[in-house]
């Protein structure tokens, strides 16, 4: 049953188009415009060509921020995806427990991002925070303000706290859609718990896992508010990820040209990597094991 061709459907899409054009296309054009111009102030601009792009692509500062962001996203995915799957597998399937788990798990997702930062900023403090205080009491030297490694530890555990539930909820939705007969057949076939997971549950979660990986990659790659509140990008520049660097460049230093060039490169990297993830995962799903 194919959908009928109807060009009038454009009228239905028009409001979305206008709105998104206003809120996305115009700003994006501004960015492109800045990225190829230079200014000495007084609203006088002149053509700079690809100079800003070249400068940005050669800049060690950009490379470092990009590297930090890639490492951050990689760690996030490596922790959150398996953990989310384990949590989803552990969730109750019926009864009041389901509602309780859903509500409690969704809670961190609905906290404003700077409050998430504040919660962990406080929680990790050695003097007044439970985490920092406990670690100190255990004799572990922990201070996220001074030690880069501790700062990383804090923002990673914060992100795990903040977003693992999203992965878990997605996987849970995939799990509950598996018909009971599959589990019965597996029992009859004498399948082990691992085999049930590997050959029934994992294949059925494929689709939601793709979405989970994409969302978690994109959002961790664009992260700004939470680490900014906790560490402000420090100590030094150790937790300055791309977004933090970009805002520093654009709002802090008001270097519009480089900031615009960086924005475009940044956006393109997100698009490219998302596309790679998407292609690899859909191929994996279609192709071999």
């Amino acid at each position, binding site marked *: 049953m194919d959908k009928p061709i109807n*060009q009038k459907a454009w009228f239905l899409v028009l409001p979305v188009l206008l709105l998104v054009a206003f809120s996305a296309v115009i700003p994006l054009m501004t960015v492109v415009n800045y990225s190829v111009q230079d200014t000495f102030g007084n609203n006088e601009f002149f053509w700079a060509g690809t100079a800003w792009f070249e400068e940005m692509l050669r800049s060690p500062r950009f490379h470092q921020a990009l590297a930090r962001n890639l490492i951050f996203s990689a760690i996030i995915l490596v922790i959150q995806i398996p953990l989310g799957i384990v949590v989803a597998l552990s969730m109750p399937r019926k009864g009041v427990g389901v509602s309780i788990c859903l509500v409690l798990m969704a809670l961190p997702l609905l906290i404003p991002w700077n409050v998430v930062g504040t919660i962990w900023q406080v929680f990790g403090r050695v003097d007044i925070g439970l985490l920092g205080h406990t670690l100190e009491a255990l004799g572990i030297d922990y201070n996220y303000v001074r030690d880069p490694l501790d700062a990383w530890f804090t923002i990673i555990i914060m992100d795990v706290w903040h977003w693992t539930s999203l992965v878990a909820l997605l996987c849970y939705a995939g799990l509950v859609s598996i018909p009971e007969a599959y589990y019965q057949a597996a029992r009859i076939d004498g399948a082990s718990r691992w085999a049930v997971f590997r050959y029934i549950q994992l294949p059925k979660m494929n689709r939601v896992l793709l979405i989970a990986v994409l969302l978690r990659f994109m959002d961790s790659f664009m992260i700004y508010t939470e680490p900014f509140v906790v560490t402000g990008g420090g100590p030094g520049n150790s937790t300055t990820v791309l977004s933090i660097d970009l805002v520093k460049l654009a709002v802090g230093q008001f270097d519009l040209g480089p900031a615009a060039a960086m924005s475009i490169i940044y956006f393109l990297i997100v698009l490219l990597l998302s596309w790679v993830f998407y292609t690899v995962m859909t191929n994996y799903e279609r192709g071999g094991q």
Partner: protein
Amino acid sequence: MSTGVTKSINLNGPAGTLPASAAKAHGFVAPPKVRKPLHLGWLVMTIYLTFLLLPIYWLVNMSFKTNVEITNTFSLWPNNPTLRNYTVIFTDPSWYNGYINSITYVVMNTVISIAVALPAAYAFSRYRFLGDKHLFFWLLTNRMAPPAVFALPFFQLYSAFGLIDTHLAVALAHCLFNVPLAVWILEGFMSGVPREIDETAYIDGYSFPRFFVKIFMPLIASGIGVAAFFCFMFSWVELLIARTLTTTAAKPIAAIMTRTVSASGLDWGVLAAAGVLTIIPGALVIWFVRNYIAKGFALGRV
């Protein structure tokens, strides 16, 4: 469980008509290992939920303490519970105005997003038209735009239109992420409604708008609920853009919170109380839509 194993061995024994020797030759002697199912689920959930709730509990705990108690003694619960921190917030209009601001632009954004996404999602789910696939994909790429990229251009754009520090500015800016999302979720729900229903309605003489409002929208009510929930959620939690586009009149609660604290030094108690108050609306929303959350996630569209 161990008795089950021994019994099943008996079963394979002489009773079967297949000669036992043949079974041995094939190696079909090992019965399946009968495992006691691992009920570690509750343990994992308990640990995980504790992990989720501890930092929140700590914030709540602090919000009922005085600053002296917070900084001088370390206790797992307030020794001298006080409501002072909350009183500070509720007696200062700049605080509760922050709430009203946040709620206002979040609701505006949700209404706008759903209103424009509904017809578009219908078009994508029902018709083919020139460039539909590219358009759909392009819409989704907007979800991948880093907010930091848009912060500055948004500021300039809305300055040019004189919209800076208005609720509308934030609501429109958040449409960048929420409209693609709403279109995506709604398209999924709409594709689940058989097209025969549309055709029957047109044959019965319904006009498109009347059909859409009277018949179609009730059918995808849960989809609208799910989409609205996600719009609400993303608009409520996003702060980078909301803060960039507002100065005083439309400043969101979460932004006021950090500013007030930095202005008044380290008033931890008030900070904690303000944090707790920003969690409550989200918690309420989840509670009301809890039965729809799983359904929305089940579509695999977030």
